[in-house]
């Protein structure tokens, strides 16, 4: 096999890994959209907020220190303790659940029955709000997430695959973190599917997704289910935030991955969990391959910024409901 071809395979593998991370964000979208019809633009900011909260708790930062200092003229910043990672993750999950409750109680409870586009715009407002709160609570500097996740290229994979090609091929370069992320994503998806299939709450969740009024009539509390899906989406956001944060630092650009998850959703369909995963893979591989074969040599690079959207756009023209989405039936 020629080295070029093998490097092409390496690009595909790395694309798959990136795709898994996109899929992680897209999962949060699908959960909320299925259960409540809300297209949650704030998912990316939720990932940022969750990661910021995790770092802040671990480092023992005082929340809103900046604001308190400005108002009262004090000079506090840290409690002076370090919180172990497990406890910090637990606390962050609690924060995300509290956030889910607050979102449901203060915002979306009042917007039931509004047009989908109004709900979508409300989530854009929520995204701004949460971004500001995150900055106010924990400051806006770039943080590193010290969870002890493995990083850097995997030597083992490189040595194992070294013999495949000729003299100018040195084995596949694959980031250990990406492998961990893939594993975590698989576990998470398996967990979510098991939750949806086998638990009482999961069944109630699917009932709500099928038909709100029928679910109400058999005694399922809509507001409880909505808090539940927002909490689940918050936890998924935490996982996505940790993975992306470990990769590139916890900073504002983390919230932009939400924009990357949108074409994933369009490809996979808004209502399908497998669709989110497959869509993520297609986008991840597609954009890496395009950059490798056409973008970098001929177009001056950085095509990853827009390729995913164009791919989704062209794809949608032929199949408007996405790969796995429910067929769109329109009635007058």
């Amino acid at each position, binding site marked *: 096999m020629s080295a070029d071809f093998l490097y092409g395979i390496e690009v595909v593998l790395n694309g798959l890994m990136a795709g898994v991370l996109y899929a992680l964000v897209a999962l949060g979208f699908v959960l909320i959209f299925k259960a409540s019809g809300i*297209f949650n633009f704030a998912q990316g900011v939720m990932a940022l907020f969750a990661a910021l909260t995790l770092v802040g708790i671990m480092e023992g930062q005082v929340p809103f220190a*900046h*604001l308190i200092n*400005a108002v009262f003229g004090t000079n506090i910043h840290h409690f002076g303790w370090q919180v172990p990672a497990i406890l910090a993750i637990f606390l962050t999950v609690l924060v995300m659940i509290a956030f889910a409750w607050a979102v449901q109680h203060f*915002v979306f409870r*009042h*917007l039931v029955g*509004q047009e*989908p*586009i*109004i709900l*979508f*715009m*409300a989530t*854009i*407002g*929520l*995204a*701004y*709000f*949460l*971004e*500001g*709160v995150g*900055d*106010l609570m924990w400051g*806006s500097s770039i943080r590193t997430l010290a969870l002890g996740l493995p990083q850097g290229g995997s030597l083992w994979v490189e040595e194992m695959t070294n013999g495949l090609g000729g003299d100018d091929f040195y084995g596949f370069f694959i980031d250990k973190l990406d492998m961990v992320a893939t594993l975590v994503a698989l576990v998470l998806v398996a967990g979510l599917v098991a939750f949806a299939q086998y638990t009482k709450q999961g069944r109630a969740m699917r009932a709500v997704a099928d038909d709100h009024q029928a679910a109400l009539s058999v005694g399922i509390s809509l507001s409880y289910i909505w808090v539940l899906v927002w909490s689940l989406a918050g936890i998924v956001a935490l996982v996505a935030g940790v993975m992306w944060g470990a990769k590139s630092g916890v900073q504002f650009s983390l919230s932009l991955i939400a*924009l990357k998850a*949108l*074409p994933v*959703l*369009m490809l996979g369909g*808004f209502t399908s969990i497998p669709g989110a995963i497959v869509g993520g893979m297609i986008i991840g591989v597609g954009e890496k391959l395009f950059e490798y074969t056409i973008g970098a040599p001929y*177009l*001056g*690079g*950085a*095509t990853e*910024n*827009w390729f995913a*959207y*164009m791919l*989704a*756009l062209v794809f*949608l*023209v032929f199949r*408007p409901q996405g790969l796995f989405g429910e067929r*769109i039936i*329109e*009635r*007058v």
Partner: protein
Amino acid sequence: MLYREAGDFKTSYQADSQTFPIAFDRWRYWAVLVIAFCVVPFFVNAYWANAILVPFLIYAIAAIGLNILTGYCGQVSLGTGGFMAVGAYACYKLMTSFPDVSIVIHIILAGGITAAVGAAFGLPSLRIKGFYLAVATLAAQFFLVWMFNKVSWFYNYSASGQINAPERFVAGIAVTGPNTAPWAQYMICLVFLTICALIARNLTRGTIGRSWMAIRDMDIAAEIIGVNPLKAKLTAFAVSSFFIGISGALFFAVYLGAVEVGEAFGIQKSFLVLFMIIIGGLGSLFGSFAGAAFLVLLPVALKVIGVDLLGWPTDLVAHLQLVIVGGLIMFFLIKEPHGLAQLWRVAKEKLRLWPFPY
């Protein structure tokens, strides 16, 4: 007492279907125009022009444009920043290629070019609807910004990748370049805004505007009663992009003077204009003005209160601003999904009946 139809008799169909059926509204309209054209230019200084008036006028044009597409035709677009960039770069290329032609013509042509680009990106809207379309317009946003960054022909191969507006004159007065007087900046934007608003108002009143609204309310039903969706959607995209292109050209040539595409016309700009029409009111011209004024004034007001009065650090105020803007958007959507324009409409209804509301 003044605000009512009673006694204001119409004697022709033309008078009956005019834009402002109530005499007080007509007087107010002329009064606003007179103040804007004849009073403000004599008092405007550099701070007011740069911080408030010129951005307000330019964003109002962009908001009118987006409101035509989203508010009147129901097609959500997140590509406003990209289309503004098209207007800016088209204007720049025209200004540098044909230095003898008047800048006014260049700005109008830039609008025309943006209209063509907008119509091209509007083509998928015939198949793709709702959220899917909103996301599809992101393709325009990211692709256009990338293109203006990478293809050096667009910025005349300058080393910095920036575009700089050369000095241009209208009737012997500099309107672009470093020596522009604040009142000249203000006047050229005001003239464009007034003309755009007049065009928009009359388009939305007529056949074409009604076909847009039919598509917005239910596209299949509209198609059945004989509205051509291809024509309606593409004209909405084209007209909307025309206005957005003009605002982009003014934003670059008159307001900023030098532009780096990712910074000036990024995705944040798309959201900003979208917020303007949400807060102002979808499907309302007054809403476009109100929303633009609100979101231009809010950061200035917060800065004056936070930084100058309370002495807080600027980054803290910037974060608070995000919280407040986001919170206000949610608040408005909950309390009044139709925006400031609806408050205004309700107030007018009350006024008409006051003091005997029965």
